[in-house]
């Protein structure tokens, strides 16, 4: 029989993928490694490549279909060979085969009663399964239950990973609203953020930073860059880059804030990988500036621009958007003065950066204008205590208010 081509897990958290485009058609000759299709995962658009050579005998799913990982999407073989129907594999057999209890006449334990009708849309799951699913961020609706009437029970969750929901509602074209199907990334965002706000005991710290001197310093730096006739490769340093650099330096001095909650332990990082939230057309992604603590502003600027560009094109590889130790979300360019960001687990903190605004202050009896910026840090209280977070913020504030500190 021909060889199956299955939906592969193209990201660490992918449970299913949407087939965006077939790159080959039935009858094409295929070599190992050929790109067969583009697949939208929960994070990005990835390529599905051939693992076998031969003729593409059948495309089992049409473009636009969402296919669970491990399900067949195509067949490769020799012309004329028979192919399967693409049906999913049968569910695993129960762990133990049931054997009749006893040959003795046994009265029913309870009189037979009519089964309660299942409410539409309600997922039947044991209380324990619900608790485990909530703790681990699992979508019970996406899990096939092996209990009576499909009840999801604890053992069904063994090995399950946080997953996006399976079914997307069809678009409706009614009058006052539009039903937009959930993209993979939107589902993942929803789940991850809900997971965050749920179990993570979060508190928030806000500080006001005087950016006047930093403003002047950046103006000078950008001017210098321009004056030096910066070439095509030279990237203008943004405030965001400066904040990344300062944050990385401050985190080095406050490693307690540069840590992961690991359920049974806390992992404190001594290297700083800063995740920077980037808005993309249907969501956001957090590419990572690795080892930001050791990078120059120029390097950070170049890298952040590249990552942001490719993020918007959905071209990031999983390694480029995972593994951050601390995140920064900046909505200053969208005129937001102050907000709170949601922690990206397992990280313990995220910094929400507001816009830099002119603010009138009285200094020695005279009204002056200064550049002010609000920083708000969301902290996972399981990792960071109030004073710990406050001390980190204080360091960061001092660094941002004194440009020299960045190179100190």
């Amino acid at each position: 029989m021909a060889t199956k081509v299955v939906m592969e897990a193209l990201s660490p958290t992918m449970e299913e993928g949407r087939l965006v485009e077939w790159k080959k058609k039935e009858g094409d000759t295929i070599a190992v490694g050929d790109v067969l299709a583009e697949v939208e995962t929960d994070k990005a658009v990835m390529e599905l490549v051939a693992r076998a050579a031969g003729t593409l005998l059948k495309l089992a799913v049409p473009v636009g279909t969402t296919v669970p990982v491990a399900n067949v999407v195509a067949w490769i073989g020799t012309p004329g060979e028979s192919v399967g129907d693409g049906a999913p594999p049968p569910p695993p057999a129960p762990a133990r085969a049931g054997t009749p209890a006893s040959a003795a006449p046994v009265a029913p334990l309870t009189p037979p009663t009519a089964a309660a009708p299942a409410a539409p849309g309600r997922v039947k799951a044991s209380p324990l399964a619900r608790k485990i699913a909530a703790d681990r961020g699992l979508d019970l609706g996406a899990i096939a239950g092996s209990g009576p009437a499909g009840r999801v029970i604890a053992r069904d969750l063994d090995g399950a990973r946080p997953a996006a929901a399976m079914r997307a509602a069809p678009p409706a074209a009614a009058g006052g609203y539009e039903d937009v199907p959930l993209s993979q990334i939107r589902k993942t965002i929803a789940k991850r953020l809900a997971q965050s706000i749920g179990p993570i005991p979060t508190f928030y710290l806000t500080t006001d930073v005087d950016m006047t001197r930093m403003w002047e310093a950046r103006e000078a730096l950008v001017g210098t860059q321009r004056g030096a006739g910066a070439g095509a490769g030279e990237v203008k340093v943004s405030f965001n880059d400066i904040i990344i650099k300062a944050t990385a330096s401050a985190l080095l001095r406050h490693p307690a804030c540069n840590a992961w909650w690991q359920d049974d332990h806390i992992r404190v990082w001594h290297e700083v990988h800063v995740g920077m939230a980037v808005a993309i057309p249907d969501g956001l992604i957090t590419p990572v500036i690795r080892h930001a603590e050791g990078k120059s502003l120029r390097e950070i600027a170049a890298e952040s621009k590249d990552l942001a560009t490719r993020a918007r094109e959905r071209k990031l590889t999983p390694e480029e958007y995972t593994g951050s130790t601390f995140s920064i979300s900046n909505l200053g360019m969208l005129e937001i003065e102050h907000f709170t960001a949601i922690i990206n687990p397992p990280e313990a903190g995220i910094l929400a950066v507001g816009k830099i605004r002119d603010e009138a202050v009285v200094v020695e009896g005279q009204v002056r204008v200064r550049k002010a910026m609000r920083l708000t840090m969301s902290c996972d209280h399981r990792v960071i205590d109030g004073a710990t977070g406050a001390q980190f913020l204080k360091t960061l504030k001092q660094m941002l208010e004194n440009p020299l500190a960045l190179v100190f």
Partner: protein
Amino acid sequence: MAVLTYRDALNQALREEMQRDPSVFLMGEEVGVYNGAYKVSRGLLEEFGPMRVVDTPITELGFAGVGVGAAMVGLRPIVEFMTWNFALLAIDQVVNSAAKMRYMSGGQVGCPIVFRGPGGAALQLASQHSQAFESWYAHIPGLKVVMPATPADAKGLLKSAIRDDDPVVFIEGEMLYNNKGEVPDGEHVVPLGKADVKREGGDVTIVCHSKTVAVALKAAELLATEGISAEVVDLRTIRPLDSGTILTSVGKTHRVVVAEEGWNFAGVGAQVVDLIQQEAFDELDAPVLRVTGADVPMPYNKFLERAAKADAPKVVEAVKKVMYV
């Protein structure tokens, strides 16, 4: 440690407590000259005399009330009912007098009394002599209800019951009297209100008491041959119920079967299930199932009687249901 029958373990507890405390006395039908309908009180009349081992007329309401009256003024009566079926005639004294005395006297008058005797079915004794009433008494605030399953527990719990300052309903089992087991000599006291894990296991908890402890242990053996590890929790005291031990086990196994000899409706198991659904809801991976006596008066025919009783195959069947196998 001596190996004793359940009957002799009870006898030992009675003797030791009567020696220990002169305010303890035993009364009931045939407890003296006859040596006890089930020989639990064998030899006590000779040792303690007729004032402390009192043969009564067949007058359950009367002598139960005599016991309560004596307890009100500081004696520690042990009132033996030949079986708990006959105690229905005395239930006014147990419920309206003994259980209420401390409360309605505003704490002035206590009632340190033990009502004891065999409960539940034996073999082919038919409807009026084969009844498990523990849930009736456990329903009543003011009473404690104790049901030992083993000789050691029989001795240790009876000693605690006699020393307790509240009325204790102590239900033995006719089918348990001949069971043998190791019983610590002398001062062996098992506190009331403490359940006992009779067998440890990880897959499912079987909550049981009295005669169903043996049933559960048998079921656990059968289940072990199929790779299912059952934990057997013997309640020992029905009221006050040891919720801690039950919930700890549920937290470990996530699946529970409650076995009891009595009828299903409002039985002891119903209370256990209520406790679990309130306190351990998120621990459950399956509904809690109950194995009880059939919801009929006990028939005489031995095959019908067997079908009416909670037994190991029924427990195994229920365990498999909660294990989804």
